[in-house]
């Protein structure tokens, strides 16, 4: 992986320490408490824990000033891989900072350095196709009793990819059931993989185990391509971003179109196929998951030349399609929330491509839980700051992180805050929630 890091040295050197990778864009800043954009800088307050710092640390490795070691790997593991640094830096330097951070992580893994908990998690992923080991709950257990078509024995036009979180997160499993019911109610010809549903492999990517991830991506892509479906709908934002963007970046993406639950629901609601007539009198806010949002942007594999103009200005020829994070899924969840009668929706301050990470990504949950906690608590505080009683999202990692972390808050209104998937609200509004 050193070669990959070496390829990125050109991008590393574009950093001129402007500090913007630490802060949310100015017009969005309304409070000191919510002005940060980088979770690890907010937690540690040292420059090494930023997109810029990671770039310079990478240069230090390439120039043999720093030797990879276990401590470095354990500290580098704090990055949640949220991509906010990329979004902030892209406009300033045309650089994908997170790509460098991940290349660094992959290099450290390649050198044999990774938190012990990550090593264990990857072993579990290889052996049991999930992070936690031999789980009693099978991948298809969430759908019991729904009589959904089951691939490959039965055919359907649409695959519902539920995600492995259904195996260890009961609330998420329940949300997946609700989504399936909504699809059936709307007359969608949907099927599932059931116990054959694989993990998308995102945990391997996050932990820097590139080879494991690439193998996973290839096998999952092959499996999905063989189904003969028209469409893949991912229940979870994390799966969506992985199949849509990361697969293409590291291996190859499925030949079939990948969609997210919110896109489909928004369309069904818009076409009148799902009537939302039951009021849901709640005040909610919506958390944009990183992998549904900025990290779901398709990353083109650019091929071209770096040319120089005006003596010193490098430019990409042909122009590179940069990932500003703007093409993520942002509008559809909002359209859904707007369509729910009786619902009050208050935006948080850091939203869309500038959303604050939940803290649950990047393998941080197991390796550096204190970062996950401080990050999630900041987000919950932000939800409360906009007077929401409920934080809604569309990703199992986000929802799990908020559900677990809110209990650690010293504020009652945060401990009592509801954490829901957007599907749960649609289900209520559709009158299906007895």
């Amino acid at each position, binding site marked *: 992986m050193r070669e990959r890091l070496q390829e990125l*040295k*050109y991008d590393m*050197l*574009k*950093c*001129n*320490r*402007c*500090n913007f990778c630490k*802060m949310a*864009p*100015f*017009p*969005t*800043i*309304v409070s*000191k408490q919510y*002005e940060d954009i980088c979770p690890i800088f907010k937690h540690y*307050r*040292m*420059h*090494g824990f*930023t997109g810029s*710092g*990671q770039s*310079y*640390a990478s*240069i*230090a*490795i390439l120039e043999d000033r*720093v*030797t990879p070691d276990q*401590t*470095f790997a354990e*500290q*580098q593991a704090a990055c949640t891989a949220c991509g906010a640094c990329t*979004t902030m830096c*892209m*406009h*300033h*330097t*045309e650089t994908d900072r997170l790509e460098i951070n991940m290349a660094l992580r992959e290099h450290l893994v390649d050198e044999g350095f990774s938190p012990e908990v990550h090593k264990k998690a990857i072993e579990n992923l290889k052996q049991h196709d999930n992070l936690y080991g031999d789980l009693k709950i099978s991948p298809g257990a969430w759908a019991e009793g729904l009589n959904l078509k089951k691939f490959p024995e039965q055919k359907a036009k649409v695959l519902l990819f539920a995600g492995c979180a259904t195996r260890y997160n009961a609330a998420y499993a329940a949300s997946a059931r609700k989504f399936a019911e909504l699809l059936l109610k709307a007359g969608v010809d949907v099927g599932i993989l059931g116990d054959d549903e694989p993990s998308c492999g995102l945990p391997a990517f996050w932990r820097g185990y590139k080879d494991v991830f690439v193998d996973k991506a290839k096998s999952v892509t092959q499996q999905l391509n063989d189904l003969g479906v028209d469409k893949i709908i991912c229940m979870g934002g994390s799966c969506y971003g992985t199949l849509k963007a990361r697969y293409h970046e590291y291996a190859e993406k499925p030949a079939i179109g990948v969609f997210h639950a919110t896109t489909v629901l928004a369309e069904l609601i818009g076409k009148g196929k799902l009537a939302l007539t039951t009021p849901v009198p709640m005040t909610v806010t919506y958390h944009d998951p990183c992998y549904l949002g900025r990290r779901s942007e398709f990353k083109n594999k650019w091929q071209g030349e770096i040319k120089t*103009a*005006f*003596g*010193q*200005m*490098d*430019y*990409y*020829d*042909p*122009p*590179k399609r*940069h990932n*500003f994070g*703007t093409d993520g899924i942002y509008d559809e969840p909002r359209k859904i929330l707007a369509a729910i009668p009786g619902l009050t929706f208050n935006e948080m301050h850091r*939203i*869309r491509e*500038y959303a604050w990470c939940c803290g649950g990504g990047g393998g941080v949950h197991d390796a550096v839980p204190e970062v996950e906690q401080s990050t999630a608590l900041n987000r919950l505080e932000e939800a409360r700051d906009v007077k929401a009683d409920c934080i809604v999202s569309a990703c199992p990692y986000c929802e799990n992180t908020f559900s677990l972390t809110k209990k650690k808050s010293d504020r009652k209104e945060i401990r009592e805050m509801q954490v829901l998937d957007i599907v749960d609200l649609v289900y209520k509004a559709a009158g299906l929630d007895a």
Partner: protein
Amino acid sequence: MYNLTDEQRKKLVEIVGEENISTEPWQRDAYGIWFASQPRPDGEGVYWTERAAAIITPRTVEQVQKITQYCNETDLMIHVTSTGQLVAGAATFDHTLLLDMSRMDDIVSMDGENMTVVVEPFARSIDVQMQSWKKNCNPYVISIGAVGSTLAAATSHTGYGSIGTSCGYGPRTLLGVEWVMPDGDVIRFGSAGQGSGWFTAAGPGPDLLGSIRGFNGAMGGLGAYTKAAIKMGPWYGPSEIGGDEIAFGCKTPSNFIKKGGLPKNMSLNTTIYPSMEAMSDAHYHMHEENICYSGSRMPAFVLAMAPLKDNASLVKEWESGFHKKIYGYTLSNQIQGASQDEYEWKQKCFNKVVSDAGGIRMRGVLKMYPKIAEDIMKLFHAGLSPDEYRTLQLDIQARIDALPVTPIDIMAAGASTAAALRNVDPGLARPASAMFTLGGNLDTWDAGVVQNKLTMEIKEPYVTKGGILDDGVDTGCGNPYEGGHLGYTENVFWVNRVNKNGAETLPKAIGDAVTEIQKGISSFTISSGMNNERFGPYEFDYQIWTKRIKKILDPNDACDSTTYSGSPDHKEVPMNG
């Protein structure tokens, strides 16, 4: 390279706690860049400094004091950094403890009536603005933007900020400093030291602020500032961005959509002129009666770059020549009125000043109106007689004034206002990885124009040879300050860190700046410890006096002072007693 001994580490952990010190090599190297964007002469990579012995993030002045006292007892030193933009506040000795002040980020107090704020080192200007706007006050914001430290801008660094004409020039807004001195004493200048409150650093007797702040500050190289009292300027705008009047929905990185118009007592004006003389004349008149709330000269290259997202687009845009022909001499000015009557008077005065100077007030995206653009090019370049010029100028202005106000206008005005208020640099790092400035002579605006000309003479041959980016050569940025009394211009230029030609050119260009100094320009922006030796002999040997102060105040060499007093041979300076 030096690694702390166990005993040293233990002592420091006792002071700040385990989680607030790092001796990991990778972390230390994340801070190990000298003037972040300076290229290495071989064009291959980073210009590394000495690796600091440790990175420490103190939280209180007591912790900073204890660390400093410890350095007096040992061969360790401190160097201080806060937001660390561009300069990075790197160590230059391997025995240096780099104090990153990012945990000292409080706004200690804010007094809207006396228009004063007391801040810790990592309180950023935007943090101050969020509170101060509610009290109708605004701090000076240095050119790197409101992401920068208010304290550092006033105590330690230089640089223009477009609201300097109404909010004061940063270093001159200092009303007091709490300073952990190199010997470990803690001083509060002036009234704060006397227990009277934070309202002046001057007295009793001499103003001791003069020991640490001139045009430059110490840049982290002489003790640690832990608080600063800043005089704020007035603010007549909305109490927040995000309210009904001026709000931005996040849609894209560079295009923030505004909900609603600018408040009725504010405007952002972009004006263009046929020549530097015309523009300067207008700039004088705009500021001397405090017409403008902010002002800056925007070089054509920067204007071309600002709305674009990548260099490939910039190539096309710049090569088209459009900006060079129309925006060669452009000013951006905000107007605010403390009352509606005042705003209307100011806008009327502004319009007259622009018109009298031969300028045009712009509105709209000019490319949407090619005939107007064409006429402007004719106005500026066709060699018209004065009467012809005036007739065409008034005609163009009338046509621009008659253009419909479009959502794009509203968006641009809102976004530009927000950017101007917080001095957002719109991708200034993008053209090439290293951005520098030559010169920066705080005198009057006229002097800035002269300096810019001289700087262009230095720059042009390097541009021709390809060692400095060809940005049209004239990229003098700056503005008047303090009601137009002072003025400042610095000519920015870009060099690509990984381009060998550029990397070799940069030190030569800076060295050539000595020719400016020899003529009479001050070395201000490019002075600071590292260049003191080079420029000081032309300026009354100020480098010697700086080193004498270092010797007096830091007898035990507890501070890594290269950014303050220059090269490490400070011990050799003869004292004058």
